[in-house]
């Protein structure tokens, strides 16, 4: 399948905006255009200097602009009737890919010498006149590369002793570095590591995909820039090659991992939102099965190696959410159960605004429907324990319904329940509080209570 020609990925799009320039000598060229893509192709034509276009949505008109946002007098305005598309090369300060198309506004060399204007010959004489090379955009004294020098954009300098020098414009892959797995990367790399052009996130061609920018507003899926909206190893993008759905992008890692900044919002005892920042030590499933260590491939093979997800804290076998799932999870040590969600870790908001049920006295009469322990482990049915005649735990069988928290042995610490048979805890208390009732008779204080000796010889063995 021959790739369809597409041009819009070379533009940065601003919905409901337009660019105007009242002072500019050249006026926009207005053309009818069936789509933004069509407009982008018109703007690309070489016989016309076009740095951006305003697309008028209602009447499908294309205003091809010979200026960019940095041109003196240019102004970006909000206007719901227009979509502004700006050629990236005129608004970025980095080099994308191997082809040197830098059209930015840097005007000093890498040793900090001011560039000489291309139209000047006063200090360092040369022949790269702007008129002679109209397609090279030899404007003012901006760094350019009209001779395709392998060192990148350069300029003649204003120092008589230094005729010309490279400007040291960075590659876009180095301009903004990434931390961790690049989930927060907001740089401008728009090519994959093999040099394939990225598909726009708001386009369904050549690959239909679920990552529509409007659905994932916090992921900043702008234009066709590499991003990591789904917790892959690195930022990536869908490619313009119909045979390659997606590829990783090559982006420089930051020198320091800033892990201390990343840890600011972590929680250890409860879950906020999807629990991506949970750093607690829960390492069993709600059913009590021990979690598999992240650095182990047994019993389950997996790709969540701690070394590849350094900011996800895949320590030991603790429940974590390295992939943006709905809740922290772990691989289990049960060969028949690959993954388990750690839903027994409570939610922080549930702790902040507790709706904890309460019980009177010791809770013998509690008849509520809570059926999880204080750590969120599901309770087991009472039935087998009643039938087994476990006299140690059940003084009274009244009210032992289903798997609800109850207090059949008048435990002074409140209602409790058994857990499932394979749980590490056989039983535990439930998350219930004693009711604060003014009508409850006061407990006899120590003065009136008979004092029992601690040394009464009862042999507990």
């Amino acid at each position, binding site marked *: 399948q021959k790739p369809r020609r597409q041009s819009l990925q070379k533009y940065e799009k601003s919905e409901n905006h337009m660019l105007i320039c009242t002072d500019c000598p050249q006026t926009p060229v207005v053309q009818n255009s069936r789509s933004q893509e069509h407009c982008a192709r018109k703007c690309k034509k070489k016989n016309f200097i076009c740095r951006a276009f305003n697309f008028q949505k209602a009447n499908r008109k294309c205003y091809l602009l010979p200026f960019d946002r940095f041109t003196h007098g240019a102004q970006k305005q909000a206007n719901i009737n227009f979509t502004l598309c700006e050629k990236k090369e005129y608004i970025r300060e980095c080099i994308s890919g191997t082809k040197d198309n830098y059209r930015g506004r840097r005007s000093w060399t890498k040793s900090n010498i001011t560039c000489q204007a291309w139209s000047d010959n006063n200090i360092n004489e040369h022949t790269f006149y702007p008129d002679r090379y109209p397609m090279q955009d030899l404007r003012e004294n901006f760094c350019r590369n009209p001779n395709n020098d392998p060192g990148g954009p350069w300029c003649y300098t204003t120092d008589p002793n230094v005729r010309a020098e490279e400007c040291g414009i960075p590659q876009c892959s180095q301009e903004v570095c990434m931390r961790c797995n690049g989930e927060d990367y907001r740089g401008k790399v728009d090519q994959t590591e093999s040099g394939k052009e990225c598909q726009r996130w708001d386009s369904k061609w050549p690959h239909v995909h679920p990552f529509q920018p409007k659905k994932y507003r916090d992921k900043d899926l702008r234009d066709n820039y590499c991003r990591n909206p789904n917790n892959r190893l690195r930022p990536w993008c869908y490619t313009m090659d119909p045979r390659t759905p997606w590829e990783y992008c090559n982006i420089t890692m930051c020198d320091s991992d800033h892990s201390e900044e990343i840890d600011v919002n972590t929680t250890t005892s409860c879950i906020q939102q999807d629990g991506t920042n949970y750093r607690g030590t829960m390492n069993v499933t709600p059913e009590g099965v021990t979690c598999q260590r992240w650095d182990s491939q047994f019993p389950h093979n997996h790709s969540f190696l701690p070394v590849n997800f350094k900011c996800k804290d895949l320590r030991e076998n603790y429940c974590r959410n390295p992939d943006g799932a709905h809740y922290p999870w772990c691989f289990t040590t049960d060969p028949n159960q690959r993954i388990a969600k750690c839903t027994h870790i409570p939610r922080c908001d549930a702790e902040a605004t507790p709706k904890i049920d309460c019980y009177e006295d010791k809770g013998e009469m509690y008849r509520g429907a809570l059926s999880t322990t204080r750590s969120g482990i599901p309770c087991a049915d009472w039935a087998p324990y009643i039938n087994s005649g476990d006299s140690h735990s059940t003084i009274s069988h009244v009210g032992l319904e289903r798997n609800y928290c109850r207090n059949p042995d008048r435990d002074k610490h409140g209602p409790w329940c058994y857990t499932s048979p394979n749980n590490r805890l056989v039983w535990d208390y439930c998350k219930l509080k004693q009711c604060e009732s003014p009508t409850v008779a006061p407990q006899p204080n120590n003065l009136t209570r008979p004092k029992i000796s601690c040394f009464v010889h009862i042999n*507990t063995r």
Partner: protein
Amino acid sequence: IVGGHEVQGTDGGWVVSIQRKKLHRCGGSLIREDWVLTTYEQCFTSCVPDLKDYSIQVGLRHLNESSNRPRLGISRLICGPEGSNLVMLKLENPAPVSDGASTIHLPVKECHIAEGTNCTMYGWGETKNTGLDEALNSVTMPMVDNEMCSQIKGDAENSRICAGGNIGEGVCERDYGGPLVCQEHQRKVIVGVSIPRTKCASAQPALFVNVAFYSEWIYKVFRL
């Protein structure tokens, strides 16, 4: 233990060293051959820690003999009732109750120790240069009456007891979790489990979990 003295003979055989990555972290008490009673705070990171990092040593006299003595693994950690600060540890194998190790009796439930009774606290913790560091030390301290103690206990009421209050004597870092033991005739009973306070060995009495208050829970854990 600050201001105490090194334990002699077979005394304190029930005191265990709870270690994380083979380093002494806090004290505990052998209440059954396969059960240790200690505190949560400063001993463990959570109620579900990675137990393979932890081990127990019994019958130790000095931490420098630690490498020559057997280590016992923990198979289960059970956190006590809300607010108790207690933890029970089930050992993977019963501790050898010979060779200097023994168990300590639990108190009768809801019992009371009279004010002024001298009881003893044990531990391998900080001595503040008052004794031999890393040796098992003990200090004797009087039980403090409830009224004075209530200011320290706050809302904890019957779940806490206090002892000590002599400046320069008391429990300190790495002793926590260890036992406060009272004796009547030949019977020794663990009445308290030490828990951290802001200062050690100050004029303010030390705070302990009242084991008698939680004895029902302890027996229930044994049973179930």
